[in-house]
């Protein structure tokens, strides 16, 4: 295979894996922001908590990596319901500043709490044998873990797409995002709907946090350090849109990887260029409501 094609395949592969991580972690944030206009800056904290649960489950309780990911996601999803009911609900009608202050405060409290229990040293997880090393496809070797990320990401895209577009609850969520008052007036319980989507979104964030350990290592500051990335994905994709979040994650993931590979000197610059261009052309993102 010619050199250029090999490089293109390599960039697409790495970019796709990165995009899938971005999609899994950010999709919950997009849907909850679209549904309730609620600015949840503690989203990264749920991802970080998921990561630490995976660390504890694998290292202290001997649970295997895949089961740990599932348990951590469910656990964080359930815990997030408590947060939503007790802390978030009273602020739905409040201004954005109040929401930002509450949620960023929660994120900082989470950082302090996890630093206290786990310490600031970065954690890693033992991966099963089949996820280590790489597969050689003749013209190029691909890391197995990234292939796993892509497969898992595509699977979740399919599941979420089906749930969003083909089920009754998905139709209700779409209706509530489009016009909340109309949805309520035809008898849709938007509050309950929101609790469910919030829990699913937080659970997915926790899954993203667990998956990120192998990519970045895990420290308590994960909660705020990568939040900017998730917010960019949400802004570029448009609030409340599954399709938009996917498109944004793919575009940003692949462009970022290509930029780092081809013009390393400009490094992480490209992700911001794309963001600025997209938002200039479409201020509400790809599929956001104007």
């Amino acid at each position, binding site marked *: 295979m010619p050199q250029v094609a090999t490089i293109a395949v390599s960039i697409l592969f*790495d970019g796709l894996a990165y995009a899938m991580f971005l999609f899994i972690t950010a999709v919950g944030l997009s849907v909850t922001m679209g549904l309730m206009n609620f600015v949840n800056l503690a989203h990264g904290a749920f991802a970080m908590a998921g990561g630490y649960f995976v660390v504890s489950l694998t290292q202290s309780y001997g649970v295997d990596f895949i089961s740990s990911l599932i348990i951590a996601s469910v656990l964080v999803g359930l815990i997030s319901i408590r947060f939503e009911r007790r802390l978030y609900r009273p602020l739905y009608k409040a201004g954005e500043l109040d929401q930002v202050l509450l949620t960023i405060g929660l994120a900082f409290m989470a950082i302090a709490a996890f630093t206290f229990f786990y310490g*600031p*040293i970065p954690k890693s997880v033992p991966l099963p044998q089949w996820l280590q090393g790489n597969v050689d496809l003749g013209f190029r070797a691909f*890391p197995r*873990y990234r292939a796993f990320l892509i497969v898992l990401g595509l699977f979740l895209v399919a599941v979420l797409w089906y749930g969003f577009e083909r089920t009754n609850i998905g139709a209700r969520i779409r209706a509530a995002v489009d016009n909340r008052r109309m949805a309520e007036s035809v008898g849709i319980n938007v509050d309950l709907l929101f609790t469910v989507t919030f829990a699913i979104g937080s659970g997915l964030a926790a899954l993203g946090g667990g998956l990120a350990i192998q*990519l970045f290592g895990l420290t308590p500051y994960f909660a705020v350090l990568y939040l900017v990335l998730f917010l960019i994905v949400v802004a570029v994709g448009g609030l409340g849109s599954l399709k938009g979040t996917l498109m944004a994650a793919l575009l940003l993931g692949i462009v970022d*990887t290509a930029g*780092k*590979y081809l013009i*390393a000197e400009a490094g992480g610059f490209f992700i911001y260029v794309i963001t600025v261009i997209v938002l200039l052309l479409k201020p509400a993102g790809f599929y956001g409501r104007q």
Partner: protein
Amino acid sequence: MKLFRWLGLTALALTVGGAAQAETVKIGVVLPFSGANADLGHQIDKAFDLYIKLHAKDIAPHKVEIVKRDEGPPTGAQAKTVATELITNDKVQILTGFVFSPSAIAMAPVLTQAKTPLIIANAGTAWITNLSPYIARLSFSMWHPAYPMGAFAFDKIGCKTAALAYTDFPPGKDSTDAFKAGFEKAGGKVGLSIPLGSPVQVPDFTPFFQRIKDAKPDCMYVFIPSGAHATGVMKAYGDLGMRAAGVKLIGPMDLIPDNKLQDMGDAAIGTIVMGHYSVDLDNAANKAFLKEWHAAYGKDSYPDFMSAAGWDTMHAIFDTIKKLDGKVSDGAKVIEAMKGWTTNGPRGQVTIDADTRDIIQDQHAMEVVRKADGKLGVKILGTTKAVKDECKAQKIGRCGT
């Protein structure tokens, strides 16, 4: 009346006399206690605390009072604010700590103006000590490990070509420049030189390393701040199968900090670094240091090269307090007293160079191996005694001013 005046004078004389005997030296400690690199601050802070706890009696009747402040992110702005406050509000007489080079660089003009000595416990950009006569450094210059690594990589590891990758802030450029100078002098060729983004967050290293892997150099020299980045580098290097593809991973000791080594796994085995400390160094002072460390912080807690430098830093400060009999309010005298200071610490013999106020220490080439007890550790491949900062010795770039 007269009697009262005499009584008053006597009382005054007693107070002054008493103060002259037992001074309280106020030391400002500036280290990152928050942010992605908080664990670097903790590694040094633990060494400081341990030294003070064990050696407080050495400086009797004098005492030290420690005021700790958060250095913040590796950008220098917050460090400058808190350190200036320490000097003006808290009236500290000696400043120490400083993990990040930008912090020390930003602070240098203030030190000169305030005549307050800064005893650096980490920040390693070579030319920092030239910025103010009130700076002495107990840790290292980037050139200490990186310059000798150049020749060692070419002669002993078999690197004929090398790619460079570095976190994009002053010490990163400094470390790769030093390696390049040593490597090219020995006859090696440097190909790619790739900046890895800012030190604030750990990037996805894969696209950068994939690029290097495709260029097929013999070795990849990596500098990253020795925190969460080190773990990330090892993961990306392992996942891409770069060792099997014939690209050896080399760098300064920041790549394999002792407190993170056990978590790095098999990907780290075979990595060769140049550095001044590892918990596996075989000397009496290090054995004693490790024993005290484990007793204080538990058997699973390890000091690293930063802790070792932190330990020596506090040792030098204590010796200076003793030497000046507690009278450390004159910054110039403090720095003067430190020149030529020498000890046998956990790193082996270290000396403060009287000309440059920078450290002179041994450098060890170390390879990561799995030890007999199943843990990861290092094997010493070779040692260069009493290495000086070559950047200042050869007056290269900003080191010459």
